[in-house]
Structures are given as C-alpha cells and as structure tokens.
C-alpha cells in the first residue's frame, strides 16, 4: 500500500522540512502521495507535484485549513486514511501536534521522531534525549510515523510531474478557534536548516549581549540558537531554543557560546558536523562533545572572533 505524507506549508510555500519528510516517506514506500490541506494553496500543491519522489498530490482547498487547527486537519486526513498503509509527517511542532490525534482515531500506536527507516515496519528512534537509540517494529496494520527532519536530506524539488487531484473538505471543529500567530521575522536562515548555527546560553547574561552573537551570525550567514536557560531568562524568544524540548539542529558548524551543555541541550545539537564550544569553565560538559573548545571569557572571545573573521578574504556562505 501507499504512504500518505501530510504537507506543512504556509499556503504560499512548502515549509522546508516537508522535503526532508518526503525523503523518509519514500524510503518507506515509493508510492508516496502528499496531502495538501490549505486555503488558496495552489502554489503549494503545484510545487509538491514537481518533486520527483511524489507520485500524487491530493489538494483540499478550504478556508478552515488556513491555519493548523489539528481538529480540522485530522478530520480531513481520516477521510483519506483508508487507502494508505502509512501516514507520515515531520516531527516538528506541526507534526507533533497533529499526528497523535490521527493515530488515536485509527487505533494505531504512533512511532514518533524516527531517524532511520529500516524497513516498512521497523524504524530507529532516539529516546532519553538521544542518549539511547531504540529499534522498534510497529505491528499495527496502519502506521502513523513522524520523522525527525534533520536526519534525512531534503528531496529534490524539481523534475517531477505528479497528478494533482482535488478533494472535498471534512467538517470543521466548532470548539477550537485560531486567534493569532506571532511569527518572528528574520532575514537570517531558518534555525532548523541553517548551515551554521551560533547559540548563546546563560553565560550571555542578558538579551542585549546577544548582539555579540548576532554580529557573528551576520558575518557567517548563520542562524541564532539558544539554550533553554537563555530563553527562560527572556534573553531571546522561544523559537530559538535548541534541545530536547526545543529544536533539533544538525548544521555543518554549531558554535555554543556560554552554554554549559546540559543533556537536554546536547540532545538538540550533538549530531552537528563540527561543534565549537566557547566557555570560561573548562570543566563544562559542552567540551565533551566539542571538536574545538576554547576556554575563554566570551565577552573577550566574541569580539576577537568577529575581528578574525573580518580578516579572512573569503567566507563560505
């Protein structure tokens, strides 16, 4: 049977992790269909039909799908579930909110946050903040799976021409109402997909000092991350949090500044290709995962770092 992937988008564009989820979903079964629930999201359906791994796009257009109301989404997905062996989405806040609601109605035990497809029914997933990996086999007839996007490469975006079929909406929930979304706009790369991430922790001492980090982020075209401590203290907004209960990032370069390296933070960044730690406490656990550790006062090191970067003739972007 085929796999149904639930697309994440903003009605104009496909959100980037959908492409990573497509890669994983097509490893489960090549007959991959994508469901686009949205409002005037024709461009989204069209973009997804051009992804070579996608065999069919089902497009449901209705104003009740303008925002992600899990109750509304679930009703529509259940209508289509019958034809599929697997229902899949990315394991970000979109999929985490949505998929269990679908799974419960299908009476299936969800497999969350997989990092590897071993076979159609067997998957690898991290548990205990990534301190153990579990190989699990789902014995349910219909499987609901969420995918850790950073563990799969994004699928090619062009060259395909899948058929787009229109489908009818399901009933809307009367008990949940969308009020507003406060999105933090930034010209910087998205944290989840950035090639370089520079993160600050409690050692930054206050929000103003994050300027030292953003100056370097600008220079390196990096995204800005933070430890939970820094977000809790109000230095920076929640969408920057890296860790077990925040975002998982796997950049080519992760620079941890003034972050001690609690298990929960490491869970979100220790798969990064190259890790740099800057911390004045030489015993900080962050050094145990760092490829390059610099034991230094960040208030001296960061300005120096910027001036050293300025001396370079070229910087990869």
């Amino acid at each position, binding site marked *: 049977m085929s796999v149904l992937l639930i697309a994440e988008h903003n009605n104009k564009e496909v959100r980037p992790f959908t492409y990573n989820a497509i890669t994983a979903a097509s490893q489960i079964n090549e007959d991959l269909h994508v469901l686009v629930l949205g409002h005037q999201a024709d461009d989204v359906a069209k973009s997804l039909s051009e992804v070579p791994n996608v065999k069919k796009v089902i497009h449901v257009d209705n104003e009740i799908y303008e925002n992600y109301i899990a109750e509304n989404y679930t009703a529509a997905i259940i209508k289509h579930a019958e034809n599929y062996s697997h229902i899949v989405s990315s394991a970000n806040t979109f999929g985490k909110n949505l998929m269990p609601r679908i799974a419960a109605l299908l009476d299936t035990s969800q497999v969350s946050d997989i990092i590897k497809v071993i076979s159609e029914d067997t998957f690898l997933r991290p548990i205990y903040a990534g301190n153990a990996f579990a190989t699990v086999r789902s014995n349910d007839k219909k499987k609901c799976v969420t995918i850790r996007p950073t563990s799969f490469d994004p699928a090619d975006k062009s060259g395909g021409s899948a058929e787009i079929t229109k489908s009818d909406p399901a009933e809307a929930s009367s008990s*949940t109402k969308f009020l507003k979304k406060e999105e933090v706009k930034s010209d910087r790369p998205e944290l989840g997909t950035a090639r370089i991430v520079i993160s600050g922790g409690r050692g930054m001492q206050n929000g103003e000092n994050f300027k030292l980090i953003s100056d370097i982020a600008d220079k390196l075209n990096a995204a800005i991350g933070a430890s939970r401590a820094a977000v809790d203290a109000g230095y920076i907004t929640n969408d920057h949090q890296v860790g077990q209960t925040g975002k998982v990032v796997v950049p080519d370069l992760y620079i941890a500044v003034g972050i001690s390296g609690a298990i929960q933070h490491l869970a979100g960044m220790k798969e990064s290709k190259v890790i740099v730690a800057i911390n004045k406490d030489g015993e900080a656990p962050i050094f145990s995962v760092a490829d390059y550790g610099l034991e230094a006062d960040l208030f001296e090191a960061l300005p120096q770092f910027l001036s050293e970067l300025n001396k370079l003739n070229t910087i990869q972007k």
Partner: protein
Amino acid sequence: MKILVAVKRVIDYNVQIRVKEDGSGVVTDNVKMSTNPPDDNAIEEAVKIKEAGKAKEIVAITIGEEKAQETVRKALAVGADRGIHVKVDNIIEPLAVSKILKKIVEKENPDLVFMGKQAIDDDCNQTGQMLAALLNWPQATFASKIEVKDNALEVTREIDEGLETIEVNVPAIVTCDLRLNEPRYASLPNIMKAKKKPIEQINASDLGVDINPRIEQIKVEEPPKRKAGIKVASVEELVQKLKNEAKVI
C-alpha cells in the same frame, strides 16, 4: 471547574542514563526517579487556576507501577486535592495510556485535563493529543500561557515559528510547556498534609481497555560516540582550524 492532571514518573532529568548490556532497555535500578518536568508545570498551572478561584477541585492521576504513587503524592503536596493511581506493571504505550485516561475522564467528568507536553523518557509527545482525539475534545498543545475565560481557554502555544494563540472550548485537553510557569516546591507542612489526602487505587486490568503493546522494542543501544575534540589556545587558532582543517567557514 474540575481539573484532572496526569503525571508520569520518569528517570530524573539530571541522570545520565545507561543502556543495558543486553539491549533490552535502560538501567532503572537504583536510579533517581522524579516527576516528568513538564508535568510539574501542569500541576502548578492547575493549582494557580484553583488559587484564582476558577477551579474547585484538582485530581492528580498517574499510571504505573507501585512506586509511581510518589508522583501523585508530590502533586498532592503542591496543591492537588486527591489522587488516582492506575496500576500497571509493564511499560505501556501512549495509546494505552490515553485509553486508560479516557476511562477515568468518563468517570470523573473533569472540565480540563492538563499534562506535560512530552515525557522525557520515551520522548513520544503523544498522550494529550491522543486523549483529546478519543474524547473528541479540543486540544491545546505546548502551552506557554493559559487564560481562563467563560467556558473556554485562551492558550498561547510555542510553535517552531514563534507563538500561536488559540481559543478552545471547555472541556479541553492542554499539554504544558516548560515556560508555562515556575513550579513551586512543596513546603514541609504541605508534604505532611499530603500524606493524609486520599489516593484511589485502580487496577488497569479492571478498566476493560486493551493496553497490550503494538510496538515491539527490538533493541536499545548507545548512540554513536563523538570523537574527542581538542582545546584551542586562542580565537586566532580557532578561526584558522575552522577555515583550514574543518573547512566549514
């Protein structure tokens, strides 16, 4: 209003877990256990709502082995009125947990069910959403702010792009994020008082729900270890290494 709060006993968040040599799981013998951290936020929020005069009763529930009662006892010490302990001997999946909770909700008729957004052991992040689906109630997940209105809640949710605010009619399920509030510590007198509060014991097998596992855990292993890195002496050296050795800038 009546609030049911679900709490789970997990390995303490400070413990560096160890994988069993036979690959059957992680070592839990003689390991410090405590309440799943965001479940503490769930209890705290319920207590704050009660203190504000907007809730009459808070019932704390846990599902697990005998010792899981400790988490209910702790919830009673910070302000829950009474407890329920549903006894199961084995680890059960979120789907089974939500089926048990559904039975309890049908019996207790709460207006709200609160719990943490995810347990830090299996990291599933499923139970609240599943319970909401089984009850056909609205769900507000990853809550960082809750405002109680007439027969509705306005909930601010932490999402990848920032914050989202939704309104859900009561009855509703809310899963709590760590920034929802600052959980209080139980005072000694309250800990003593909590010992006298009732905890009802129920055997899961008496509830008539299928809690058999659907997912087979084939193997638990240690993740690959990172190779040890080096300490650099200066910022200049760091930048040179990143440029010429790691070739990432």
